[in-house]
């Protein structure tokens, strides 16, 4: 698994998967539906290349997930990209303060959405060279 997609909205998840599939990245994506699941998945599985994290999540929200990821010694340097509908400055600032690697605002326009998700997926899975993650 290269990408952990944390997304509660199944349609948004489907759209993201589709965007990744258009670049043959879909088979390397695992989708979880909320923050608790995301943390459980990370705890039990090898670390993905990147975590695509929505902020508005049931139970444990995205920023809290991010905080716990960074608090865990194993995932301190795990690449995390926020993929959110929010372009609110406090959200952006908080995410960066918690050590996010990138912040992408989900566009409404599908073409733009596809473009954004594709770019992020390609960049983090193909272009970027991450450090070896233990655990």
């Amino acid at each position, binding site marked *: 698994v290269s990408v952990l997609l944390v997304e509660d*909205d199944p349609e948004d998840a489907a759209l993201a998967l589709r965007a990744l599939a258009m670049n043959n990245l879909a088979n390397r994506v695992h989708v979880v539906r909320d923050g608790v699941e995301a943390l459980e998945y990370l705890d039990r599985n090898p670390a993905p290349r990147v975590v695509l994290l929505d902020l508005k999540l049931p139970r444990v929200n995205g920023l809290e997930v991010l905080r716990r990821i960074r608090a865990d010694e194993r995932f301190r340097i795990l690449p995390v990209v926020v993929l959110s509908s929010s372009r609110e*400055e406090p959200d952006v600032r908080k995410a960066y303060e918690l050590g996010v690697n990138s912040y992408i605002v989900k566009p*409404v326009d*599908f073409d733009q959405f596809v473009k954004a998700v594709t770019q992020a997926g390609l960049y983090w899975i193909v272009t970027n060279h991450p450090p070896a993650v233990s655990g």
Partner: protein
Amino acid sequence: VGFLRRLSIAIKLPVAIAILLMLACGGVAGAAYFEVRLLAADVAAERLEGAARMLADLLGPSFRTRTQLLQRTADDPRLRQYFVDRTPEAAAAAGQVLEKLTPANGRWAIRVTDVGGATLLEAGERQDWGPAEATRATLSRPSGSFSVDAGRESVYYELFVALRTPVGDPLGHLIERRWLGRSTPALELLQGMVGPQAELLIGNAAGDVWTDFTRPVNPVPVALVNSLVTASPAGVPLSLRGVAVPESPWVVAAGLPTSEVAEPVRAFLRDAILITLLIVAVGMLAAFWSSRRLTGPLTRVTEAAEAIAAGDSQGSGPKRGDEIVRLASSFEAMSQRVESSHRELAMMVDELEDRVHARTAALEAANSELEAFSYSVSHDLRAPVRAVAGFAKILLEDHHAELSPDARRCVEVVVRRTNQMGQLIDDLLAFSRVGRQSMGRHNVDLTQLARAVVEELRASEPDRQVDVTIESLPCIEGEPTLLRQAIANLVQNALKYTRPRDGARIDIGAYPSPGEHVIFVRDNGVGFDMAYSDRLFGVFQRLHRPDEFEGTGVGLAIVQRIVQRHGGRVWADATVGAGATFYLALPSVKEAA
């Protein structure tokens, strides 16, 4: 004058009263002094005139009887006979006649002269008669005129009568010389009557020779016959009054030392000054006392008023029983009313403030609720809209072949309209963000800000030829991100609406206005109809059709919101087809946002 004004009433009043009393007393005393002086002079003049008149009455008859005696002697036949005979016997007989004239007392001499003035016969004290010219000089003066003798030690007078023949031919003169004596009983009596201080004088009416009956004295003015004069016949200043002795060439005068005449006047003056000082002192004390009584309550009223002015409205006036008390009691009533109205006012202010606070809190709550609502609504709307747009797009792309052309057109509309809806939501979120953005207080250099904005926006449309000028803009205090957005929106608008122009031109400038800076963004674009200018800054308000110019109608609403948060104003000026100018007036002294 300024010094006088600063003095307290407690000092001014007694001083003023003392000055008034002094003026009044001084005036009265001065008038009385002149009156007294005139009176004293009158009294002295009367007394002296009386003395002089008595002297004249004493001397006048003796002058007359002596002249008559001489006249009778001159008619004596024995004297005439001497002129006829000129014998020693005749001389002896004539001499006997002369000897008979010897007076009871005093120095005396008598002689007979011829017409030329030569002495023929003489009797009495031996005298050096001098030359005939001296005799002629004596005869040229009135009979009885005084002369000073050669030794200047004594004064004598000479009476003379003419000697004639029975038919009237002149023969010569009978001339008697007499010395005045102080020791005549009459003179002593008179001296006793007028007092030892008095001086009695006699002299020629011509004024040349004067004597105190013993020796010659300095001549005194003959005006003393009519009035009191001051002169110093013997060294001491005298007030003199004279009387002419009837039928004689004599004037007699009585005098008193001037100091003695003025003595009662001086005494009066002394008393008057003493009384004046006494009155002034008493008046001043009384004025001081009463002004203290007067200003005491005033001082307390003033102090109470000052206390009230300083915020303590418990001040109360003095307690006493006249105009001052009425003033004080009305003052007290006033101060109570002032206090009660202060209280009422304070209560009203408190109540108003409470109301304002309550209203403000309610408004703020409503406002933040509304903003939170609009934020979450628009935020939550994005996901479904994105899903609709996304799946419609998938339908078009993945199931293209399965859709009829009509179905494809329908799905294309769905895609276009959902994208438009997404844009609306984004703009709405941007608008609501302006309200939620925290307000920093930074110095913002608008010139730099405008340059950066223009550069960025030009980069987004690199193919366009737009002439942009940026004048020197002021530095103002505000939130940089918001101000940047406002300028960016205006420049973006200007770029958008100049798109149909070949020579597109945008001017960014500023001018000062009282208390604020006005920044303007002027373009030569399509402009708009000023009739709709009131809708310009409303949310989702558009003056152009979507197929003319893209946009959702939020940009200018955001500009207005930003400017309002900075305590400023925004307005526009435009002509259809000739361009538009947008103005931002921002306070030059920052007010609370």
